[in-house]
């Protein structure tokens, strides 16, 4: 007996694709932002910090709305992307990934910051006296030591990204096979007469993925930390 039908499989596949792409997209940016916020003192640092955390406090619909205005077919960025590269974000999986990336961005930045703050700067000093320049030090000392926190943050953001609803449905709508991820499919099922069984199965999938993701993140961080001798 098949536990999951084609509707569930498609929603699951889309959710995984959207969450995966969002994490890959935001990780490098989040690393740079976390670095700036932790290691540099500059004018506007507090404003940048608040800006990064905005998706945590704004209603997701508002984030989706701003994305629509900026990245819509006639928006300043969306229009440019379309003319230059033929890339369209509205109503596409890529757009869903962008919305998810922005919603989970504070999570990733925060976990990278915490792991960066836990890196012993005296080790970087030691690397300096051994002849390592700034990028060399970052690549060979700082980055490996912050990796456990970074990966755990990425896994948490991935798990959270599987369930992003408000920003996604506002920005890219609810299109089967393109943007109908698990929560959107669940929402659709609840709205449809006779969809209770489907809704229950989708909810169970979401629950399992979320819990599994959190446990995996914790396990990963612990394994990496002991590997790094911490």
């Amino acid at each position, binding site marked *: 007996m098949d536990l999951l039908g084609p509707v569930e499989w498609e929603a699951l596949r889309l959710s995984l694709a959207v969450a995966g792409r969002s994490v890959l997209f935001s990780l490098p940016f989040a690393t740079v932002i976390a670095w700036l916020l932790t290691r540099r003192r500059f004018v506007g640092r507090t404003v940048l910090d608040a800006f990064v955390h905005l998706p945590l406090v704004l209603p997701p619909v508002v984030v989706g709305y701003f994305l629509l205005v900026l990245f819509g077919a006639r928006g300043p960025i969306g229009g440019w992307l379309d003319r230059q590269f033929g890339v369209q974000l509205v109503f596409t999986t890529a757009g869903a990934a962008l919305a998810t990336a922005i919603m989970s961005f504070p999570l990733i930045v925060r976990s990278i910051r915490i792991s960066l703050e836990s890196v012993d700067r005296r080790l970087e*000093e030691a690397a300096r*006296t051994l002849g390592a320049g700034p990028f060399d030090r970052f690549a060979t000392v700082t980055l490996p030591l912050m990796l456990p926190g970074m990966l755990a943050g990425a896994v948490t953001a991935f798990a959270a990204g599987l369930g992003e609803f408000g920003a996604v449905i506002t920005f890219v709508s609810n299109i089967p096979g393109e943007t109908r991820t698990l929560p959107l499919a669940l929402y659709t099922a609840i709205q449809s007469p006779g969809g209770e069984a489907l809704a229950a199965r989708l909810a169970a999938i979401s629950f399992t993925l979320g819990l599994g993701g959190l446990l995996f993140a914790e396990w990963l961080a612990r394994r990496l930390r002991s590997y*790094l*001798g911490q």
Partner: protein
Amino acid sequence: MLQVAVRKQLGDFTLDAAFEVGDAGIVALFGRSGCGKTTLVNVIAGLLEPDEATVRLGGITLDDTAAGTRMPAERRRIGYVFQDSRLFPHRNVEANLRYGLKRVPGGKAAIPFEEVVALLGLGPLLGRRPNHLSGGERQRVAIGRALLSQPRLLLLDEPLASLDAALRDEVLPFLDRLRGRLAIPVVYVSHQFDEVLRLATHLVLMEQGRVIASGELGAVSLDPALRSITGPDAIGAVLDGEIVEREIESGFARLRLGSSELRILSDEPIGRRVRVQLLARDLILALGEPAGLSVRNSMSATVVSVTRDDSHTDLVLLDIGGPQVAARITNAATRDLGVRPGLSLRVLVKSVSIRGQTLPTAGETA
């Protein structure tokens, strides 16, 4: 040649220190905790920006604030052994050791990997992670790592301070061996006078951010300034001599110091160079050659100076035929014996009160 002159304000603490060292040799920066030793060393390493500084090493200017020159720490090629070893936890011992070696400009290694591993006994540790090492092993790896970066100068910031007595005794012999092999100057920071005595050739005394005396170990060991740091009991001549004769049955060795000889308890062979410390409080002065005493050493000496040491004691500086020693005696004794500059007398010292320590011989010095 290392020339250092540094000024740095940190809160209400002012570091204002200057000293010079020759091409090889170990200069000990000695002073109480908090006197600015580590701050000074961090400026030399380039890790701390000075307010004003001139630091020159073998003709290369590392710091010259007047000319606006400041070489980044990573280009100074100064090996730094930190008090807390600072090994990279995500790399095994071998990768830690090779970290600096890989980054040597031009890849020239005058100090080869195998030699450092052998010198510091690191062979069995190479595959281990730093968190599986003892404190003493960690410091040995840190020393090896700094050496392998092929430094022009080696800085050791209290490398033994975080170790208990047993671990210190485990690491000290390795530092001893190092001393004979290095052709670069070494700055050794310490607040333990016995380490200084054992390792240093030069001594820089620091107090509250200032250098209060500096020079060769033998000379500074007689400087009254030392007293303010070590207290009166550690004052005494530190002399390097050569064993010229052995008295096998009694266990004595005769150590030549200038034109004098000293009987010390030692098993070292003839030709060995040995460093001894004659504590001022252990020396006895006599106007004539005494008889019927258990004391095994009696040297003729001339009084150089008499200075007030304490409310009831004097410090008498004596020439024993080249080298100088200091004796601490009571004011009453000074008066009764008529001790004054130019007076000839005998200096008595018990063989068992002499602390001796073997120095590396010329042949071992690279």
